[in-house]
């Protein structure tokens, strides 16, 4: 294969039907793979009448044209589905080895439909595709399941859910290779609802570049930039993603105690530097990755992977906890239970504030590190208060009459940047199609890290265009599929040439940006079809109305409305946030919706 294998594996668990379908070349041209292709297939397969936790929802696992090519970080894959947490279009992507191995099975996409009558697993190997009983695996943790199915990096790779997914927690993850996660938006619950415990892949095909000379040249040039960037060659390998903890805290953008403050007094104790000093055993890389940002860490009680910056924040500053060992163990626990660390930590932080305000009867309080691990287990097994927290912070807070205390956008818990100190990040959260998320065009780059150039983080004019461009770039990278950390050093013009080398088809940098824009607009159309409106492009009232209380961002709220207006204008959407017919035509999406002709 040169980029695309040209095949979709379609499995219906209800009747154990297994089909191989051709990949529509036109869809591949327009959406590439991964997130883009997943959204396009989801558009056809899951309409607004479908409950995300019904058998009519589907799981779409998709590789991209660069997956398994050997390009730097070409190990990733996505899952697309309708989110049980947000009700929006959802995709989550993950690294490790599984994505590379799946591509080697000779398929670009795996669609899983229906619902098995009992616990089930899928095996895709050179011997064929099998649907098998998984009753003995049901109830097992992620590490137990992964080991039982013979995980062997580079040869045999396992993807599964843990107890949280089995118990239909709306903040549950799908895990691959033991410790990597497709976490956000609750895809684990969709898999659990299908009684699907695991998917094991063994492949032998190769994704060989069509133009080997150009590919070698591009590998060299890309590698040069990754080595030259202090972020990708020093900060991430040495400190992991938590390298930014002190940076974000210093500028007053570290959400603390459920976003009541923008700086954490003990940030240094949970920083990347401290993690390296106290807990780091070694760093580790996903397949074909020269960056190696993964942390293998050890506490007195356990050893495992992580925590990443976002997870450290979620169990740390968000919960007022400064014990790095407790935070790391919470991360190991989430990996094993199959929970989204950001949503789990943020939901617990929300509950801590509600308990302090007397809105719920619970011993949870900010700083109560001793309660953290049991609360996570209670969420995964839906015990006591955990049963409510398993629904995510918005449903939990709303059930107790205080939805405003959920720090979420479109019901997805916000990550580790306080947008009162990063105005563009606020616009990003509010407009993100899968809900409040930093991985859809993180403004940490331009607003803090000077990538590609430092812009005024408090300014609003002109911000909309930069946010939109970053959203397009993120959507393109998620469709190729590569790790976004390469984008810290390497620009779209490199990705376009890598794609040209692998597929033999000519792509320009702006072709990729156009594809990213197409994906973004398709996702928007999906959400509009689900009933979302401009009113959903918003943030928790706290961020709009309560100024940051102290530090370098003191006095600022998010000035969302002027940015949102400029954003809709930039995108060619009407004032309700609906793409205009002209925009849809330009993006070749007009055939998806019945559109009226532009009238003068």
């Amino acid at each position, binding site marked *: 294969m040169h980029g695309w294998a040209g095949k979709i594996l379609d499995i219906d668990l209800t009747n154990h039907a297994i089909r191989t379908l051709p990949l529509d070349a036109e869809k591949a041209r327009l959406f590439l793979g991964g997130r883009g292709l997943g959204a396009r297939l989801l558009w056809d397969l899951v309409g607004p009448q479908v409950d995300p936790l019904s058998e009519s929802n589907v799981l779409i696992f998709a590789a991209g044209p660069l997956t398994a090519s050997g390009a730097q970080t070409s190990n990733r894959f996505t899952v697309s589905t309708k989110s049980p947490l947000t009700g929006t279009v959802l995709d989550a992507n993950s690294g490790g080895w599984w994505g590379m191995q799946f591509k080697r099975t000779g398929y670009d996409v795996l669609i899983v439909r229906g619902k098995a009558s009992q616990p089930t697993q899928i095996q895709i190997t050179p011997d064929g595709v099998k649907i098998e009983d998984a009753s003995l695996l049901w109830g097992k943790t992620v590490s137990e399941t992964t080991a039982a199915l013979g995980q062997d990096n580079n040869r045999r790779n396992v993807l599964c859910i843990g107890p949280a997914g089995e118990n239909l927690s709306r903040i549950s993850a799908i895990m691959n290779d033991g410790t990597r996660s497709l976490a956000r938006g609750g895809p684990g619950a969709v898999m659990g609802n299908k009684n699907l415990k695991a998917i094991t892949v063994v492949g032998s095909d190769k994704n060989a570049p069509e133009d080997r*000379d*150009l590919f*070698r*040249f591009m590998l*060299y*040039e890309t590698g*040069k*930039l990754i080595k*030259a960037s202090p972020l990708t060659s020093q900060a991430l390998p040495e400190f992991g993603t938590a390298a930014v903890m002190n940076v974000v805290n210093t500028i007053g953008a570290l959400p603390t105690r459920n976003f009541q403050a923008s700086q954490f007094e003990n940030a240094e104790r949970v920083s990347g530097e401290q993690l390296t000093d106290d807990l780091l055993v070694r760093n580790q890389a996903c397949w074909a990755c020269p960056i190696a940002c993964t942390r293998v860490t050890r506490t007195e009680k356990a050893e495992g992977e992580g925590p990443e910056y976002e997870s450290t924040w979620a169990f740390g500053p968000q919960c007022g906890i400064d014990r790095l060992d407790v935070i790391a163990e919470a991360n190991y626990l989430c990996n094993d239970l199959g929970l989204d660390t950001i949503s789990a930590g943020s939901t617990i932080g929300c509950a801590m504030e509600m308990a302090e305000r007397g809105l719920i009867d619970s011993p949870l309080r900010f700083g109560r590190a001793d309660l953290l691990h049991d609360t996570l287990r209670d969420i995964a097994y839906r015990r006591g208060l955990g049963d409510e927290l398993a629904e995510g912070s918005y449903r939990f807070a709303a059930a107790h009459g205080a939805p405003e205390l959920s720090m979420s956008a479109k019901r997805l818990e916000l990550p580790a940047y306080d947008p009162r100190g990063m105005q563009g990040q606020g616009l990003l959260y509010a407009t993100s199609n899968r809900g409040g998320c930093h991985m859809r065009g993180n403004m940490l780059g*331009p607003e803090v890290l000077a990538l*590609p*150039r430092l*812009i*005024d983080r408090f*300014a609003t*004019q*002109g911000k*909309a*265009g*930069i946010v939109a*461009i970053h959203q*397009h770039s993120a959507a393109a990278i998620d469709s190729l599929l590569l790790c976004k950390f390469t984008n810290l050093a390497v620009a779209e*013009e490199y990705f*376009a*040439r890598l794609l040209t080398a692998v597929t033999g088809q000519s792509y*320009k*940098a*702006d*072709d990729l*940006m156009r594809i990213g824009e197409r994906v973004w607009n398709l996702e928007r159309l999906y959400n509009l079809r689900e009933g979302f409106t401009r009113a959903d492009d918003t943030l928790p009232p706290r961020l709009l109305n309560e100024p940051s209380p102290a530090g370098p961002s003191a006095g600022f709220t998010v000035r969302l409305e002027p940015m949102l*207006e*400029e*954003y809709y*204008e*930039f995108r*060619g959407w009407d004032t309700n946030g609906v793409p205009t017919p002209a925009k849809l035509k330009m993006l070749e999406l007009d055939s998806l919706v019945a559109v009226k002709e532009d009238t003068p």
Partner: protein
Amino acid sequence: MIDPRLFEEFRDIGRDIYVAGLTSSHGGNMSVRAGSRVIIKRRGAQLGRLKIEDFIETKLNAKDSGITRASTELIVHRTVYQKTSALAIIHCHPRTAIALSLTRDEIIPIDVEGSYLLHKVPVVAAEFASGSQEMADIVADTLREYKILMLRGHGVFSTGQTLEEAFHWISCLEEASDIILETHLLGEERKEFRKHSESYSKW
């Protein structure tokens, strides 16, 4: 009305361009895109002495009275914004790069920084090399693939997410052009030190 913070960026970069000798007293222009509008320097304003009243705001996709005072190259700026992801554009007249554009179809830097950042800068030509739709289309189509280009015998068009980024590419190109020229003037054999440099022409 232009945001004061944005004006400061225009003013400082305009001054830097003039002081660096990258354009004549009244040559060159700059713009940024904000939503569905373009903020662009007015016609005749000196890049090195910009004032807040030297900027006009005009629509991206429709004509309005703003065009009566806009830069001659507004048509190019609009077309580039319509066809590419650029958020800022700078046009000016770097003399060494212009000289090279008169003798070759592409400028391939031979120094480390130019090689890293630019690889290759294409040279394009139009019969009416200023303010024409023909030129605008050629420039915009080329900028879908490259972030900076030379218009033969006229000057540079550079794009970025910010004015600073667009300025960076111009500054880098002129430095790389100076180095090409000076190395040529030395008249000695050049020692190649870059692996895969033969592939730069394919960039």
